[in-house]
């Protein structure tokens, strides 16, 4: 008894989803976290609360609203269909949309906390020495907050790997398209195929544990100020 092709497909799909989601979240999340760490406007706390919502909302709430929004009868689903000829529900793109929302706080919060500890006098110094915005970001902010970046990326990736409820509601359980590992596992359990379920459950457990050990080891040993 070993992994069957359909489980390998689910594994590969899950890794792709986690990777795409993490890249999008790092690109979107970094400027957002920077703004949140600097802003003193009251509006910022509304945005901060919005970012944190997926932490406490049941995934079924997100799944339900997404499913409604994805319907071609509604604005988002209708526009997407007109643009791409595809629906958002039951597609990989739809899962990416769901995962970006679902994992947003896991990327933004570590980055924001890293940026809050960043010494802004360094930026002013660099500016007086003629460093441009991109230069300052790439050569000053990222190296000095790399722990926060690593934490954000690892947590965003790991959390997306473990996504279940949202995918269950918007995915449609399609092999190679939306049947991620957690869904394949659920399917095996419900069909009483415990042998295959053990493979996926054990694998996910080991992977998540390894990822967290990597994360905490990194944060503990590379005790760089960030």
């Amino acid at each position, binding site marked *: 008894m070993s992994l069957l092709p359909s489980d390998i497909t689910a594994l590969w799909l899950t890794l792709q989803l986690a990777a795409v989601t993490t890249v999008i979240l790092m690109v979107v999340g970094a400027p957002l976290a920077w703004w949140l760490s600097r802003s003193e406007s009251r509006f910022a706390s509304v945005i901060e609360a919005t970012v944190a919502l997926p932490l406490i909302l049941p995934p079924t709430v997100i799944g339900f609203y997404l499913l409604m929004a*994805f319907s071609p009868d509604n604005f988002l689903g209708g526009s997407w269909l007109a643009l791409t000829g595809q629906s958002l529900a039951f597609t990989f793109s739809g899962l990416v949309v769901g995962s970006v929302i679902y994992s947003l706080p896991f990327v933004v919060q570590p980055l924001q906390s890293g940026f809050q500890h960043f010494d802004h006098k360094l930026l002013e110094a660099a500016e007086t020495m003629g460093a441009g915005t991109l230069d300052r970001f790439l050569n000053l902010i990222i190296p000095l907050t790399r722990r926060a970046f690593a934490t954000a990326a690892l947590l965003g990736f790991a959390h997306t790997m473990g996504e279940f409820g949202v995918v269950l509601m918007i995915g449609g359980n399609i092999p190679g398209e939306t049947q991620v590992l957690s869904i394949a596992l659920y399917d095996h359990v419900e069909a009483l195929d415990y042998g295959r379920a053990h493979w996926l459950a054990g694998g996910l457990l080991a992977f998540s544990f390894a990822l967290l050990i990597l994360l905490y080891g990194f944060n503990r040993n590379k005790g760089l100020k960030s």
Partner: protein
Amino acid sequence: MGSGAVADTLSIATASNFRPVLEQLRETFVERQGQDPSMHQITISSASSGVLYAQILQHAPFQLFFSANESYPEKLVASGRGASETLATYAIGKLVLVSRSEGVNPKDILSKAKRIAIANPRTAPYGIAAMAAIENLGVIEESKSKLVIGNNIAQAWQFFHSGNADVAIVADALVVSARGLDEREKPQRQGLFAIDLSPHLTHPVRQSRVAIKPVNSLTQQFLDFMNTAAAKKIIVDGGYLLPMTNKNLKQ
């Protein structure tokens, strides 16, 4: 609580397709008992039959199981968990193809469909029936990539109802129930077309029930109520046929 005897409880596990009808049956049953409805503790849990079967094997606290096939209740009797004298076919389900475009040929509708929502064939008898119908219609290869699998038939129906799938193959009972709701909530909602797929099935969807041992008196009363004309009318109105013979109905 008061002076009366402790009321029995009845937890019913039902295949998702039968849930709307079962809720009506419960309502009528409680009314007929003429007692304070709060005296009765009848709860209904729905999922795909395979999932409920697995839960009952794992000693889930259900007293009555309405399956969407005959084999799960039979297996429960064989394993000793089901009470054999309560095993009976209670309804014959109708598999329908629903879409938003008018058409009479199910093959054409499936060929033109973008997304076909069905229940999970691994755990739901209606999912198996849907796959069989697609196969018998000769469009299995072109349909495979369009299939959207609901966790149970209620989710498959909801994928269609929310507009995310343009075609679904579900139990007629769900369509009947939703039509009732839509008439009340969205009288303007139109353009729902259901085609009976029974001619394209080798076997009808025969749905059996069984009580889980030990059978308490409330469970027995509910089973007796299932044999009444009123209960049968609710089942028929809900989109089912009754079994042809009454040999398995306790009288």
